[in-house]
């Protein structure tokens, strides 16, 4: 097991480095430097700026400096548009918000999704049909569709919830629901079909044949193997959710890092864009590492 975890980490590190280098090169390939403006700066000012930010170093040194800054000091450098703010400050301002509603949404999606097991247990009853129908419907409701619909109903028509902003828990409801709906649906569908498959397998028949109560059959013998496909879905779900947070931040003005990302994309503030991309990438890689380890731990058949 330890060997497996070490090997997974050994893959994770080059992945992250690759992400950093690729996004750095992309940024470098952009036409015009970060200080290219409509009003031409005096040459001396430009040279000073370039020297200050290390932009006249050779490319390889810039990359090494950048990577070293991140690895050693967790420093993503200064913003290229807002002279008084560093990328770290921008991330530190938005990240707690994203983390709050993101993790609530994730937990809700998994909890509701896993209860899709009920549909499998009552296969071909009204509950099953209801669950399947709802989950198919919810699949075509991604966050950017859910967000306006929710605001329309709960803010404009009913006036129950604030249409945006960030504050107490009442502000958390709509972002969380909008972000988690389509994942709930997907997890429920995966859970249902994998549970159906497990319930039809030999070891469940044996468990029933030896007279175990149905409850014990499901909780002790069926649930664990049925969870495996869900667990392997969690990795991609996490990526898509963190991507979806961009829409949430834009639409609900929650002030998370998604907003900073889009703003920096529109302002061509490459340093901020890169910082956020790398942060998200690191989180993703870390998360898929956790998922893989969890998977290997639950499924004794897996070879590592």
């Amino acid at each position, binding site marked *: 097991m330890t060997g497996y975890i070490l090997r997974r980490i050994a*893959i*994770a590190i*080059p*992945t992250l480095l*690759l*992400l950093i280098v*690729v*996004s750095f090169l*992309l*940024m470098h*390939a*952009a036409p015009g430097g970060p200080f290219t403006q409509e009003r031409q700066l005096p040459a001396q000012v430009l040279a000073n700026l370039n020297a200050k930010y290390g932009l006249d170093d050779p490319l390889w040194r810039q990359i090494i400096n950048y990577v070293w800054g991140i690895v050693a000091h967790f420093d993503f450098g200064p913003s290229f548009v807002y002279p008084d703010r560093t990328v770290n400050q921008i991330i530190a301002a938005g990240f707690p918000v994203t983390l709050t509603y993101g993790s609530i949404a994730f937990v809700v999606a998994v909890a509701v999704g896993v209860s899709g097991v009920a549909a499998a247990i009552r296969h071909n009853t009204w509950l099953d049909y209801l669950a399947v129908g709802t989950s*198919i419907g919810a*699949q*075509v*409701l*991604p966050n*950017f*569709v859910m*967000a*306006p619909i929710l*605001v*329309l109903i709960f803010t*404009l028509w009913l006036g129950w919830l604030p249409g945006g902003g960030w504050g107490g828990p009442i502000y958390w409801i709509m972002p969380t629901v909008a972000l988690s709906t389509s994942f709930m649906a997907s997890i429920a569908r995966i859970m249902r079909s994998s549970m159906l498959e497990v319930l039809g397998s030999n070891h469940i028949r044996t468990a029933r044949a030896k007279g175990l109560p149905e409850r014990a059959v499901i909780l002790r013998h069926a649930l664990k193997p049925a969870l495996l496909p869900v667990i392997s879905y969690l990795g*991609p779900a996490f*990526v898509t959710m*963190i*991507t979806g947070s*961009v*829409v949430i931040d*834009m*639409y609900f003005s929650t002030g998370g890092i998604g907003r900073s*990302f*889009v703003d920096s*994309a*529109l302002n*061509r503030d*490459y340093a901020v*864009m*890169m910082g*956020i*991309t790398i942060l*998200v*990438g690191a989180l*993703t*890689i870390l998360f*898929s590492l956790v998922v893989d380890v969890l998977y290997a731990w639950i499924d004794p058949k897996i070879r590592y």
Partner: protein
Amino acid sequence: MIDQISMKSLAARLSETEVKGRSPWADARHRFRRNKAAMASLAVLLLVGLFALFGQQLAVWSNEEIDFGIIGQAAQLGGPSLENGHYFGTDDLGRDLFSRTVQGTQVSLLVGLIGAAIAVIVGTLYGATAGYLGGRTDAIMMRLVDIMLAIPYMFVLILLLVVFGRSMMMLFMGIGLISWLEMSRVVRGQTLSLKNHEFIEAARATGVSTWKIILRHIVPNLLGVVAVYATLLVPLMILSESFISFLGLGVQEPLTSWGALIAEGSGTMNYGTLWQLAFPLFFFCITLFAFFFVGDGLRDALDPKDR
């Protein structure tokens, strides 16, 4: 008497089907046809396709024309109406929403289909090559896919669009860059189980070159799986494009897409122009719905054991 006749005709029918025999493809087609949800979805897709192709002919207004009688009073005058030719109403700039929706449908479908096409071509070849060659080549090729899958692609895609300018071409390239990854994994898995069959061995024994085996013997046998995944990929590509366009980072005016229209509609809905959200959203949802159903139907039809 009647019984006898019907028995005879039944017998005749039975023998007829037996003589004809049924290929796996005909079998699959039969199963697909019996799937009502999938057939209905296919009809929906056909209609949406026709709407995209010929909708512009029905439109009274072009998508760039501004109706100056309405501009500024979109909430009062811009609603859907048959009399002034704005079937779906207008947006807040007085542009005809019907022809804008037609245009958005064209763009979104195009992105979906091209993204899926790239996935099919690149993913199939890549996966089949990795799976067939096996060993170290396979390990390296699939590790690369793993690495690329671990990257939050939407962020990189936006980075690409910002750095190289927002254009349709860049959008296609960006989406194409990531769409094939999942496909190559699926195809590789199928290839691994295919490559030990006798007919591959026979081909190898008669000295057919590796490339020819992959193209002539492996790839045609993968078509079923590829068809299913391609159908399921199209809505995912449409989702990705809509996502980016919703953020205002995708297709640029005067071009539009479902995502851009939904974004516009959701921005203006508190002024009372709900139709601006409703029509694009309707087309978006039914199309995605239909693609998912057709994909599921295809999977059931082509792979009967996986139900």
